[in-house]
């Protein structure tokens, strides 16, 4: 079985823990994917155009931005490799939701694992808007079954009946 795990920079521990529990005896073929979102870069371009400038920042600054993105992606993948040593690493750039479903199809994944949204601290949320736009798009468009790793939030139950 080929399992593609989508990393968002905050969920490496959660994904590796889920994998250990799911496949304690028989290890699947693992792929770990990190997509650098190019949306903010486009937004910077729009801002520059508003100030009547060309969309791309000055040459060295552009290079610095690319380097930072690449280093951050490598950092996240290395952290995941530390916990999942036999996984194949996949790195992409673009709109995350679209890259994830396209990579899942290209890589012929049998299962996709991802979290509902990046968590930067604070309590996990349940209810409306708890699934981010990336996870929602993937659930709607994935070419294979999707396992959505929700954080444990039992203390927020029972909810109104």
């Amino acid at each position, binding site marked *: 079985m080929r399992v593609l795990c989508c990393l968002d920079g905050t969920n490496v521990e959660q994904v590796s823990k889920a994998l250990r529990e799911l496949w304690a005896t028989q290890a699947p073929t693992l792929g770990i994917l990190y997509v650098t979102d190019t949306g903010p870069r486009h937004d910077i371009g*729009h801002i520059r155009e508003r100030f009547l400038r060309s969309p791309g920042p000055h040459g060295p600054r*552009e290079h610095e931005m690319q380097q930072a993105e690449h280093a951050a992606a490598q950092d996240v993948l290395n952290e995941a490799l530390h916990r999942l040593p036999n996984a194949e690493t996949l790195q992409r750039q673009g709109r995350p939701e679209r890259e994830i479903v396209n990579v899942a199809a290209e890589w012929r994944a049998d299962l996709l694992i991802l979290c509902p949204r990046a968590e930067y601290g604070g309590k996990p949320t349940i209810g409306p808007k708890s699934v981010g736009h990336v996870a929602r798009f993937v659930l709607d468009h994935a070419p294979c079954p999707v396992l959505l790793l929700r954080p444990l939030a039992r203390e927020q139950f029972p909810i109104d009946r």
Partner: protein
Amino acid sequence: MFQYFPIPEFWKTLLASLVGVLTVVGIMRRPFRWNEAAIAMTGAAILLLLGLISFSDAFFTLIRDWNTFLFFFGMMGLSALAEAAGLFDWLAVRAARLAGKSAARLFLNVFLLGSLISMVLSNDASALILTPIVYVLVTKLRLPVLPYLFACTFIADTASFLLPVSNPINIIILSRFPLDLLTFLRLLFLPSLVLIGINIGIFFLLYRKQLKGTFEIKRLPSAEQAVKHKAYFRYTCCVLAAVAFAYVIASATQFPLSLIALSGTVLLLIGGLCWKRTSLRETAKRISWSIFGFIAGMFIVVRAIEDTGLTTVFGNWLIHLSGGTSFGAVMVGTAGSALGTNLINNVPMAVVMISALGGIQHASPVIQHGFVAATMFGCDLGPNLTTVGSLATVLWLLILRQRNVDVSGLDYFKVGVVVTPLMLLAGALTMWLLL
């Protein structure tokens, strides 16, 4: 052409208005991705060729606004050379270190840093130079990028009326309608402080979930790494401190601010060349030359329309709408400028407004000050509503989204629509209370 073949005034008015409208629509839509400067210059050239404005009139219009052109040049030069010295990188790293490990404190520091940079070096420096630096910083720190990106963009505009030099739009307006420094500070500095507070408060509320985390200090570069040449860096800091001081003195004495900006640029350039930190070619590459063409084109187009009396009609209509009260002047000036700046761009809107407000010279000083301050305020803060450019751009993005084409930029619009009307209202009310 029509100078040699007399035609009725009505047709001249109609033609000049048509060229003006087409120029503005062209700037809004940018057909074939044409540069705004090319469109504005084409409009001006057509008016000149048709004889709807004389060459001497166009020439004197541009000469009269020499302060604006030189200020744009000096402002871009100062920012470019300060960037070459590593000042912005150094400030960003210092801001991150001062935040401890807290994402929320870093967010606050980005706001404060953006305010400081906008105040002294104008909103261009915050939006265009600080934004990519903050992007690199938060990417390295593995923090969510968008809140910090929004913070830079919004604060660039929110802090752009702290001083006359904080936004070149202020210079365009003040060149025609001078305000003494104390009046400027009373009517714009204090509302700006209020709005910076509101901006920070709303953003903390909007992004409270993303800002709960911490970051690892070890991911931060050291502040020293940002500085490529210590002597030039120190020299740049000294020159900028002197420029900031001179700006305040010049604003108080009505001395042309462009000459201060230009002197600072020359001093930094000499230092950069002596220490071999930059070259003339490198500095020239960092200056957006097309802006001069854009402003020149717009000045000529608006001057030609002014001759037809249309801008006077628009100005009289604004005064009529205000009901002759200070409250009306502030509200109409703010709303009109903010809406207009989102329809076209804040530079042409400011040029249109200074032409339209020609008629307020007969009004009482309170009404005059109300209109002038509100025009600056609306043109400075208004772009935050759409941020991605203008309503035309946003409408285009919405059409793309409807066609299931995923586009960026709409996130900005959503935040702008929530935050900006509140800030415009709060700022206008504060300004009215201080009139």
